[in-house]
């Protein structure tokens, strides 16, 4: 049963401070409070005696000397291994790490980490392939657009430089008729490239693109 003691503190409070009291690490006020309490409390005196006994024994702990075999065997090892260990040896020492994976929880964690690492690798590879595919499609679309622009400029030149006014519309219309599928195809491919953000728009263009419907895109399908 806890005994109520002086200065509003219980015996338990005083007993928790006995170690600091012995080593003289308390402030003067607390130290004098403990000293006055100890004169009236047998239980705390007993605890102080125990603490002092422990202090004495700890100060006088046996200090055994090491057996001579230690120096002998370490010397033998040092003489036998004068050089630093090679990186190969250290690598094989790494296998000792596996000894620490004895706990089932650690094993499962290591396995999960390994699987996550593999999945991440596969995902990164797929992303790489998609990017390469998109690059190739874009280059194809650009070449088609350049071709369309060239044909259009030729047609316009022909139209305006021709002296025969009646023949000009006919000649202008002919290349326009030829290049319209190419322009539409180029625009369609461009829309597909940006179509990840707006699938609906892409789908609309694709449905209007006769060339794509005929699977004539040599750049491959990136969907």
């Amino acid at each position, binding site marked *: 049963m806890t005994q109520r003691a002086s200065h509003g503190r219980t015996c338990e409070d005083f007993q928790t401070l006995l170690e600091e009291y012995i080593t003289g690490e308390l402030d003067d006020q607390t130290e004098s409070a403990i000293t006055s309490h100890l004169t009236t409390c047998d239980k705390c005196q007993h*605890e102080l005696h125990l603490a002092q006994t422990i202090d004495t024994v*700890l100060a006088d*702990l*046996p*200090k*055994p*000397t090491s057996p001579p075999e230690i120096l002998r*065997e370490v010397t033998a090892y*040092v003489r036998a291994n004068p050089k630093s260990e090679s990186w190969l040896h250290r690598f094989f020492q790494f296998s000792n790490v596996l000894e620490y994976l004895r706990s089932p929880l650690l094993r499962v964690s290591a396995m999960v980490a390994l699987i996550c690492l593999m999945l991440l690798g596969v995902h990164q590879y797929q992303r790489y392939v998609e990017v390469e595919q998109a690059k190739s499609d874009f280059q194809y679309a650009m070449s088609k657009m350049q071709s369309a622009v060239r044909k259009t400029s030729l047609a316009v030149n022909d139209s305006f430089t021709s002296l025969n006014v009646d023949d000009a519309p006919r000649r202008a219309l002919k290349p326009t008729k030829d290049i319209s599928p190419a322009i539409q195809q180029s625009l369609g491919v461009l829309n597909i490239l940006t179509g990840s953000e707006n699938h609906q728009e892409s789908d609309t263009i694709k449905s209007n693109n006769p060339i794509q419907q005929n699977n004539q895109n040599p750049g491959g399908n990136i969907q």
Partner: protein
Amino acid sequence: MTEDEFLELVRKHQDGIYRHALYLLKNTEDAKDMTQETFIKAWQHRKKLRQKTVHAWLLKCARNLCFNLIKRRKFQVHLSEEDDEGDTFGMLLKTQENKSSPSPEEITIMHETKQLVHRAIGELPTSMRSIVIMRELEEMSYKEIAAIVKQPENSVKSTVFRARKRLREILSGLMET
């Protein structure tokens, strides 16, 4: 570091490392093995060793090796069992008795009290025991211990006082039985 320099270092520190291992493992054979292993590791990493910090490095290494061994073996052997085998603390106490010359009655009381305190030390948690040994046996400063156990100085100081309180509780319990 040459071979001779290293062997000189072994001579200088082997007692301290052996004592630490012995108090942690409570077994002379294991303590001997761990001490040897500590110095072998030191030889393997001799390029990293610095004269000023070599003692702390060795203690840290020995401490880790001992903790690993305890973990591996789930070391739960009590001192009383080992005393029956005439090992470790029982043997250490005999060494101490030979040095003093009090009366037979005093020797008996002293022996019993010391035996109880040593049993109490053996019942402390391993990490706490390690700190108590460094502080009380090796007389290291709180700052030195803090560097080895990688804890703040105040935390180490608090651990030492908690260990003393725990020892008092264990000793009180042992005396009642």
